[in-house]
């Protein structure tokens, strides 16, 4: 009973904090929505709002080139009557994600951390908190990713398949997570079933979108097209934008393909290598997508970092946690400052911001690499930690 109480406190606290911050600082949402760290053209609430307006006034949503949110999301928001309900919805969704993380922890036999701690880490994670307050639409993708993970652990492949399809519908790249997810499904029959269901769900969603969008397929290029081809070269924390600012036009399509391929290329190897630790493979794939996607926000990395408590059995094997966390900390702290120097004061330039986003990417990458190493060491030691032995990587 005590444990249960703690968990519900955590979830309620998670919702409470978010509502508290949103209602106490009403201007914060707008400010965060302006910050490149929390908002991209693909996830910004401002453009979503524009989409709602257009939809309500029966104007083609995607003609203006401003809105890149999926049709159904815009439609869903156009049904919400008040601002307060939107705040409530966002807070509530974060609460659900926190709850799902707690539930997922229960399926980890080796995890030494109490379940509620995982939820508390999510609830107090400032990145997720601020991302939620900024009303970034990435939270919906995150919700469906964590739902997919939870239901696959519960063995409910129907919902899993639907959830991952919805996550993919919302922002394409989570579709790749289907691969590690299939690895978590037991028999071949069920795997095929999952695949079929998620494809079906996806088709249905697209057809629904087609209908809602006034029988026009133009939403495909405005949402997925723009996302995959990095249509809007906006500065963000990712690795893409700087390349495409500097590049000769002739090379751009080629390198966009390369970047996408690169993103894809690590998913299958990670899944194969950790097929016995399938949940960890799933988490590492999330991390890899967060690192490599064209429009990442701090909300993405906050979501990924919330999974790190799952790795508690292998914490002892981490080789440079201080290094990685300092890198990430500095990257996150300095990025708004360098952006300010570049955009507001004019005394810096784009190299400043890109340099710091590289530091941030290096931080994420070193966390990923370190976790991978720790998992491999754990496997090598066969579950009986032996910190004395020193192994070389090669």
């Amino acid at each position, binding site marked *: 009973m005590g444990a249960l109480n703690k968990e519900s406190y955590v979830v309620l606290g998670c919702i409470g904090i978010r509502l508290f911050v949103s209602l106490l600082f009403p201007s914060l949402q707008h400010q965060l929505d302006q910050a490149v760290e929390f908002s991209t053209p693909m996830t910004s609430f401002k453009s979503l709002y524009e989409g709602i307006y257009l939809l309500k006034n029966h104007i083609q949503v995607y003609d203006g080139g401003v809105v890149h949110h999926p049709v159904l999301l815009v439609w869903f928001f156009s049904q919400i009557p008040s601002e307060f309900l939107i705040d409530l919805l966002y807070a509530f969704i974060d609460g659900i994600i926190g709850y799902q993380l707690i539930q997922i922890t229960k399926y980890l036999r080796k995890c030494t951390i109490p379940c509620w701690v995982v939820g508390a880490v999510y609830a107090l994670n400032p990145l997720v908190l601020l991302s939620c307050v900024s009303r970034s639409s990435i939270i919906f993708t995150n919700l469906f990713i964590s739902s997919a993970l939870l239901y696959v652990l519960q063995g409910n492949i129907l919902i899993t398949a639907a959830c991952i399809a919805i996550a993919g519908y919302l922002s394409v790249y989570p579709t790749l997570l289907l691969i590690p997810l299939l690895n978590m499904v037991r028999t071949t029959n069920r795997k095929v079933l999952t695949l079929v269901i998620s494809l079906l769900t996806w088709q249905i969603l697209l057809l629904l979108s087609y209908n809602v969008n006034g029988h026009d397929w133009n939403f495909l290029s405005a949402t997925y097209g723009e996302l995959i081809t990095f249509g809007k070269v906006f500065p963000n924390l990712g690795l893409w934008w700087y390349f495409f600012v500097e590049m000769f036009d002739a090379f751009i399509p080629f390198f966009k393909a390369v970047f996408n391929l690169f993103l894809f290329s690590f998913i299958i190897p990670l899944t194969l290598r950790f097929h016995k630790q399938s949940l960890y493979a799933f988490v590492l794939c999330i991390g890899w997508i967060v690192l490599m996607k064209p429009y990442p926000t701090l909300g993405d990395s906050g979501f990924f970092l919330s999974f790190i408590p799952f790795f508690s059995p292998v914490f002892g094997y981490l080789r440079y946690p*201080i290094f990685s966390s*300092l890198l990430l*900390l*500095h990257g996150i*702290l*300095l990025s708004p*400052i*360098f952006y*300010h*120097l570049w955009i*507001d*004061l*004019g*005394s*810096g*330039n784009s190299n*400043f911001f890109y340099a710091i986003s590289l530091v941030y990417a290096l931080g994420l990458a070193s966390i990923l690499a370190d976790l991978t190493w720790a998992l491999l060491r754990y496997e090598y030691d066969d579950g009986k930690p032996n910190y004395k032995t*020193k192994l*070389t*990587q*090669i």
Partner: protein
Amino acid sequence: MGLFERVQRQVIARGLIPKVISLLPLISTLCIVLGIVIIGILPFEGQYRNTYISENALMPSQAYSYFRESEWNIVRGYRSQIVELRNASAVERNAIMSEWLQQFGTKTDIYQNHETGDTLYGVFHAPRGDGTESMVLAIPWFNADGEFNVNGAALGVALARYFSRWPVWSKNIIVVFTENPKAALRSWVEAYHTSLDLTGGSIEAAIVLDFAGEGDLFDYMEIYYDGLNGELPNLDMVNIGVFTAEHEGMKVSLHGTPFDKIKEDTLFSRLKILMSSIKNSALSGVKKTYGNEAFSGWRIQSVTLRARGQNGPFDVTSFGRVPEAMFRSINNLLEKFHQSFFFYLMLAPRHFVSISSYLPSTVAISIGFALASLNSYFNNPYYTLPFFSLYTLLSILFWFVSLVVTFIVSNIFIYSPFPTILLAVNIIICLYPAILKGNAFMKDLLSYRLRSTAFLFMSLLLTSLLMVNFPLAFGMGLLSFPMTQVKTITSDTPTISRTRVKNSVLLLVSNPFIATWLFSLLCDNEFSGLDVFERLVSASRELGCWTWLVLCVGWWTPWLLVAISALDTVKLSNDSEDFKKQQ
């Protein structure tokens, strides 16, 4: 990777890691020394560079300056009229000046502000421009010392008249007359970018004229360039000021170098200007403001030109030729100022160091704090405990609470400053460990973790401040460093009372308010008594300078944590319940 592995194996084989960890306090102190040395060697021959005009389009003093004999009587005429306005009200002064400006076709308007005083400004539209860019000539009626800026105002209107007859301008010229160079000018700049109707496009550069008195002559020129919050104008802007002034034969002084010392170019003179430039930039807005500070934060390159002395060989028109030539230079620009340095320190009017030379010093100081943080994490009997323990969480909680407290106190202080109470409270906090002796209330592990959090925060703060406001980061790093030497007191500590006294002294010295106060009294003759606090607050309120906030939130917060950690503690002994539970 192979090399890395080999190094790693050697390090482990020789047991270097425990050795390094036990030497952390020493290494951290060495980092600070290194930071000082890096700054200290800058004035040596070969470490600094000579200034040069980086943007070729500027071509300072390439055109002949015509603001000479023909304008002499005009300046004098305006001056004799302005002298009579000395006791007139601001409204009268502005009305007359506005009439003069309109006589030669300048559009004028008055920006009304009841708190800071009205500001008159006129826009002369460029004959050859598209009207999207402008240059500002700002003249405070009363300068930083409160003197009536007679010559400055006369020059301002005479220059405006003279410029209006020229067809060469490709940027609009805005003439601004404000009551003072501080809040009034600042509020006008803000209003220009937010609410004013009559505007002349984005301001590229601004020159503030300061020539008090009615005499014809002056000895030398002083240039002020420090912006608020660590901002500096592009080095090219300072350079064209220095180049054009020296082209006219004047000597240029930076950071209050007296006339007889300007010629000196020795190690000591360079060191002195370097130190003053760090100090003045760190205290910019807090010290007297000469006008150029008002333009900070809007991508405007600004300098203040001030005439000093009264008997020299130069007359009013030669002072006027400097802004004339500078405006001609800026007028040539096709792009914004971007070529030259935005981050630099001056050692002489023609010597500077760029950021790559001086930045490492504060990086070293920041690393020093990070190492101090690691030191208090590792160098105690409990380093084997997991990171996520109750005590770490407690220390983070303490940090968060003191962050909120310092933020609230700093904001309250802005509206009702009581410096004496603030100092008294801080002194009491310093002496508290000695007063409370024997009454231990926390475990020694918490004390270590508190310091660890505090120093990590300080290190992160210094790193964040590094690029934005280097002088402030450097000064704060140096002055707050003594607090890394504070030691935890347990019952095992040998010479317990000596440690207590030492802790109290270290806390006193590194307290943000006491240290700032002592620094202002010892290192600058502009401050007296406690007025540094009032000035910090007024800079924050009137100019939007965030030095006060940084002192409170950035420095006071970790200091409070360190002060708490200096209280007496109980040993979290090996056989206690806590320790077992933690393990």
